[in-house]
């Protein structure tokens, strides 16, 4: 063992996000400009950093999650994307994608790493662990 790092994931690849949706059985709707949510901000939770109230409900692409009434908005920022979604329990998303959309971010990270590791000729194994998913890249 040589070093251990923790990484904050930033979504900057639509291709990897599409693969992540496919992995989870979600539908990625390219160029869908609105996403379903409660419809008005009630102020029960702070707005995501850098997002105004007027931006809620608007997006550049959207993700449809089966059995959920609400949808996820994919909003382009300068060089990356942010996910906007309403976590109210009736919308069903929190149950499917977890707190802070962790399940979707997990799938995104895995797909992105796998694609790059293949290019670099690593041998890749994937295993489910109690906390998440473990990828092992062997040179």
């Amino acid at each position, binding site marked *: *063992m*040589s*070093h*251990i*790092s*923790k*990484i*904050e*994931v*930033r979504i900057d690849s639509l291709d990897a996000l599409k693969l992540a949706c496919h992995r989870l059985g979600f539908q990625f709707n390219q160029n869908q400009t609105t996403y379903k949510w409660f419809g008005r901000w009630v102020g029960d939770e702070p707005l995501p950093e850098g997002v105004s109230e007027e931006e809620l409900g608007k997006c550049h692409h959207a993700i449809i999650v089966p059995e959920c009434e609400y949808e996820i908005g994919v909003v382009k920022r300068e060089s990356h994307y942010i996910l906007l979604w309403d976590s109210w329990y009736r919308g069903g998303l929190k149950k499917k994608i*977890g*707190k*802070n*959309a*962790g*399940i*979707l*971010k*997990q799938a995104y*990270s*895995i797909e*992105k*790493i796998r694609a*790059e590791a293949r290019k*670099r000729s*690593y041998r890749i194994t994937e295993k489910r*662990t109690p*906390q*998440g*998913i*473990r*990828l*092992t*890249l*062997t*040179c």
Partner: protein
Amino acid sequence: MKQIILDVSDDGEVRIETRGFAGKACLEEAQFIKDLLGKELTRNLTPAYYQDAKKKAKRYLNLCG
């Protein structure tokens, strides 16, 4: 055997661990993953990091009895 182990938790957090590398090679080898995913929040170096792969251990002979 050289390995990069990635634990991606259900809340989206990524933890990278390198095994089998000596010295700074582990940082260089894992850098592409950090560049790929985003920003490194924390880093902990383990004893293997401080081993220089090119240095050989010196042996001393006792010449004075």
